[in-house]
């Protein structure tokens, strides 16, 4: 018993150490970051259109909007485990504030889902419909980044 306890403590210490060292490849963190990259991948179609950098193309806009609708339906349940904030591990900008107010975090994700749904409904209807819908979506992104993502 007296021998096993320090051994256990050492093992636990090693496990903790290994977890911390490997944390930047935490699959949940990777999954959620990949998800945000896919958001950006589709915004890279819609953004230039509303910025006047790319000619409006109803089909391309609708495809990107459809993608964003479906991407934002992905269940977030397993993407945000406790202990994957930027104070606990490297390789993430997720602030501990997320886990301090998960209800508000979920509400902000809900606002993103609502914006994506609205966008999907109007993306093919011309620039005048697209512009405010992309603005609403960008606003939903920013609202969450404001409170829950650290500066670089």
């Amino acid at each position: 018993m007296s021998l096993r306890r320090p051994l256990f403590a050492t093992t636990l210490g090693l496990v903790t150490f290994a977890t911390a060292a490997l944390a930047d490849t935490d699959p949940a963190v990777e999954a959620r970051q990949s998800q945000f990259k896919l958001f950006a991948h589709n915004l890279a179609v819609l953004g230039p259109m509303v910025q006047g950098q790319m000619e409006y193309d109803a089909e391309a806009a609708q495809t990107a909007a459809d993608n964003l609708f479906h991407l934002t339906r992905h269940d977030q349940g397993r993407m945000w485990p406790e202990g994957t904030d930027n104070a606990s591990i490297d390789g993430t900008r997720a602030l501990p504030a997320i886990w301090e107010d998960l209800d508000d975090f979920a509400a902000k994700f809900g606002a993103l889902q609502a914006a994506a749904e609205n966008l999907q409904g109007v993306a093919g209807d011309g620039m005048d419909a697209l512009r405010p819908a992309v603005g609403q979506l960008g606003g939903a992104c920013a609202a969450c980044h404001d409170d829950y993502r650290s500066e670089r």
Partner: protein
Amino acid sequence: MRRLALAVAVLAGGAAVTFWWLTRPEPLDAATLEALAALEADPARGEAVFWASGCAACHVEPEAEDADRPVLSGGQRFETAFGAFIAPNISPDTDHGIGGWTRAEFANAMLRGISPSGQHYYPAFPYSAYIRAKLQDVADLHAFIETLPESNMPNAAHDLGFPFTLRRGLGLWKRLYLTDDWVMEEVPTPELERGRYLVEALSHCAECHTPRDRLGGLNTAAWMEGGPNPSGRGRIPDITPDELGWSAEEIALYLDSGFTPHFDVAGGTMAAVVRAMARLEAEDRAAIAAYLRALD
């Protein structure tokens, strides 16, 4: 023995008088105030100055929504190496805001960091940038702020440690750092000149994007090179051309939409800045972009 005591007393007295002299507030001179008083102020022009100067970003309530006519009730907290500063109420309320201020008092605050009662303001209020602002813009801004909604929110005290609680010492800080010299000396085109005015005077970009020395002064040798974020984890980005790597067009689009060239969306304190910048004329965003591209 008595002579020694007398000599010490005289020296101490002399040091105190010198300190008092060096730290005295130096308001705008009579000729400037006269020129200011003669100006015709236009609140409509002042609205553009207001958004360019980023007043709302710091002076609205902590969780305030974006608004066309923001309520400048104050209350946001800014953590620094010297303690926490709480933004004051600058709404036109006469009891808690700046409603009773004369144009001259407003100008002394903006351009010299001096309160109506003659005290130094802490440079968390970026008068060390605003000192370069045009008198006309200051008069117009004052006229616009007077049209905004009043808030009766009382001001909270800053949360600072000794000796930073003593405002008088800020007179020395001003001697070291308060200057109306431009950092970018040559501006060969009107666009660059406008960009310099916006970046260095009104929009006070350097306040966050330039690192500070131990006394809290901007290290102009590292102009716009970013640094640790005084208010939390992470770094304020380096926005010099080589580090940022964005074209002038991309910078201007970012300031309008909040989208980076990779279609990330601005967050944190920059989100509020972008919301204000989006209200500027497109030419002004282009001028800011031209200025940033011209940094070496």
